[in-house]
């Protein structure tokens, strides 16, 4: 169905001001709400990690005690994964998918508002654990049973963690259905599947992963809740339950989850690189194929998180995990070939995209190491893994998020972000990030296990940890620069115009910010670069 008006003409007359934002069903406003809330959780979870780094700066306990430290890393991980990265995807997709497909809104605007508010509610419930007498959940974002059972982790904080995550998960599932319906049901005339922007293709695969993996997490959380409150015994070996079952369920969700928070950002990078190379994406179809392959493989690798349990088929999961590197490699070569013989410029979005390429490359390579069971026997649950995962999640997701922000905020707000501050932000973050996380490889190889508030003195770990903590301060500074830049630019930034980057995809064919229901008039869509075609008015493909 290709239509100019959504089924429900919802939100055409929204109240002004705060009330308008609170009651909005407009996909662009909901998108902005998602992004702002997600960044809020990024800052909160980031502050928790600064406390951890402060504690780890030297051996001994100086800043927090063990009990607090355990809550900190649990809530840092939970906040970053469930309340920052995943909802940020929902936010960007909400804003840009309808624009990318040339639709006036999402398929179900009211459902869209519901998913946002479920997410907010879930996030508040998760974090309210800090207010309970026994504190927040303190068993890691992975919630391994039986540690997460009532015997070992009594207290309401854990139940709030479970309930909050069920709410957030439900929100993700409903949001996925909504966006999927939008992409398949509301594309503009001429927008065939193979003309969709790659960002939107990556979102399709991401939504599929959400729809298959989040229900499993929800079921596992419900079972844990039953165990804790109704004597279920699913994961309790003393009642015939199985702690390993929890790990299977959690990682059957957990591994696709890491692709849920990276694939959309592959998409972002793939939008940005062609624009600033002034060339089409090299190997569009190959790229789509690689994305589908990653999506399919990602459901067959989960037990690589369980190599040391002695309960899984290590060679099988190792083989599948290494295979998944291949389509990822294809993407790298596509990006390089897109830049090859182009005319490259490096405004802030492109700088962050380049940062992403280098940082994610390192994270991807250490991923092959931990995919080898013998190597994993050595480095599993050490700081090596903490390093690997942050090169992927921070070097990947966060660098690409900032690329997306600098690229798209002009569209969302109508104002350009400051370039000088943007570049300062980039270089500070690049340096701070590497100082924080690169030494962690060596800490792990030296045997420092993760999730510890303290480590022995004279273990050769002091210098590495001190450097890492200093680096985290620089990262924090870089984020402050970003917030300052955002504040100043939203007040006084240069006007963006419709298409400040000379870009390719439909969001640039309308005003900044786009009007209600997005487009006054759509350009003809004859390739995956309709705006490029319109600008160069020649035949659709060169």
């Amino acid at each position, binding site marked *: 169905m290709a239509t100019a008006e959504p089924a429900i003409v919802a939100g055409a007359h929204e109240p002004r001001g705060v009330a308008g934002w609170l009651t909005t069903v407009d996909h662009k406003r909901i998108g902005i709400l998602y992004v702002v809330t997600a960044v809020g959780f990024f800052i909160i979870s980031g502050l928790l990690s600064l406390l951890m780094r402060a504690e780890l700066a030297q051996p001994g306990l100086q800043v927090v005690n*063990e009990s607090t430290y*355990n809550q900190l890393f649990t809530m840092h991980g939970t906040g970053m994964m469930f309340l920052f990265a995943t909802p940020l995807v929902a936010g960007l997709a909400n804003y840009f998918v309808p624009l990318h497909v040339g639709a006036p809104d999402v398929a179900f605007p009211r459902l869209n508002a519901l998913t946002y508010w479920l997410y907010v509610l879930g996030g508040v419930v998760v974090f309210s654990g800090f207010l309970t007498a026994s504190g927040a959940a303190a068993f890691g974002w992975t919630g*391994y049973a*039986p*540690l997460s059972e009532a*015997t*070992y*982790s009594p207290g309401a904080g854990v139940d709030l963690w479970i309930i909050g995550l069920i709410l957030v998960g439900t929100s993700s599932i409903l949001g996925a259905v909504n966006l999927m319906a939008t992409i398949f049901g509301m594309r503009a005339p001429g927008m065939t599947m193979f003309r969709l922007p790659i960002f939107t293709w990556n979102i399709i695969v991401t939504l599929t992963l959400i729809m298959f993996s989040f229900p499993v997490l929800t079921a596992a959380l419900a079972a844990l809740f039953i165990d804790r409150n109704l004597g279920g015994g699913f994961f309790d070996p003393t009642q015939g339950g199985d*702690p*390993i079952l929890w790990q299977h369920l959690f990682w059957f969700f957990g591994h696709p989850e890491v692709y849920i928070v990276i694939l959309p950002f592959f998409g972002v990078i793939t939008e940005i690189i062609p624009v600033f*190379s*002034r*060339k089409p994406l*090299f*190997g569009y*179809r190959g790229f789509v194929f690689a994305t589908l392959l990653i999506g399919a493989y990602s459901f067959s690798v989960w037990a690589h998180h369980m190599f*040391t*349990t*002695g*309960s899984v088929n*290590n*060679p099988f999961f*190792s083989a599948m995990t*290494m*295979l998944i*590197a*291949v389509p990822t490699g294809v993407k790298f*070569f596509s990006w390089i*070939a897109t*830049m*090859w*013989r*182009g*005319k*490259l410029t*490096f405004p802030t979005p492109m700088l962050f995209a380049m940062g992403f390429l*280098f940082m994610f*490359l*390192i994270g991807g*390579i250490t991923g092959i*190491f931990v995919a*080898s*069971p*013998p*190597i994993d*026997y*050595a480095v599993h*649950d*050490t700081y090596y893994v903490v390093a690997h995962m942050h090169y992927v999640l921070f070097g990947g997701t966060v660098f690409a998020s900032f690329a997306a922000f600098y690229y798209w905020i002009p569209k969302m707000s109508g104002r350009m972000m400051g370039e000088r501050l943007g570049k300062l932000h980039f270089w500070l973050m690049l340096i701070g990030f590497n100082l924080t996380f*690169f030494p962690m*490889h*060596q800490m792990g*190889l030296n*045997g420092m*296990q*993760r*999730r510890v*508030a303290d480590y022995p003195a004279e273990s050769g770990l002091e210098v590495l940890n001190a450097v890492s903590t200093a680096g985290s301060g620089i990262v924090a500074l870089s984020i402050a620069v970003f917030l300052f830049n955002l504040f100043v630019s939203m007040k006084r930034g240069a006007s963006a115009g419709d298409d400040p980057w000379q870009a390719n995809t439909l969001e640039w064919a309308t005003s900044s910010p786009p009007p209600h229901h997005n487009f006054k008039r759509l350009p003809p869509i004859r390739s995956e670069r309709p705006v490029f075609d319109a600008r160069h008015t020649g035949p659709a*493909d*060169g």
Partner: protein
Amino acid sequence: MVLTTSCAPQGSTSQGREISSLYDIFLWIAAGVFLVTAGLIAWSIIRYRAKPGDDDLPEQFHQNLKLEVTWFAIPQILVVVLFVLSAFALNEVNEESPEPDAVVDVTGFQWGWRFTYDGSGKEVVGTPQEPAKVLVPVGNVSFVLTSADVVHSFYVPDFLIKRDAVPGRDTRIDVNVDAGVYDGVCAEFCGLLHARMPFTIEAVSQEAFQQWLQEPPEGVARGDG
């Protein structure tokens, strides 16, 4: 940059050495992959930077099937090679010795380790205040692991191996240990004092080990043999 991660410990078990040399192979290949890929990116950034004032479009090429098949195939071959190397190492590392020189039963609990020795009645229990110190003979030692409560993980960094201790089941690692004193920790997060579960294993001659086994229990054992 990648090279600075090469300082992997050598390993004090034959299994650890196996892992360490596998790590080194991976590292060389990884360094190659990193240099080629990062080099191509860096080259593009430097070489294809737009000249100021040059507004012409560069050539708009879209695809090249041969090239794309090649860059699918090369990594595919590479990961098969890495998988095979790692699978061989895995077999060696996982191999259980049919007649170990000692079998040590290890039980993790919140927060310490209990070591018992098959058929000798010897038992050493460590606590956060007084971590366990135990002896094993140089040679093939089997550790049979379980847990009394939550999941723990038995990890001796110098062995380059860890294995989870899971309540309700036994897991096992077999290592061929060199003489020496080795510190261990719990690697799987297990609650409040997870960081306070260290233990020490000293590998000594079979005679010294047997003599230690005969010693009457006296609370926490002396670790000096």
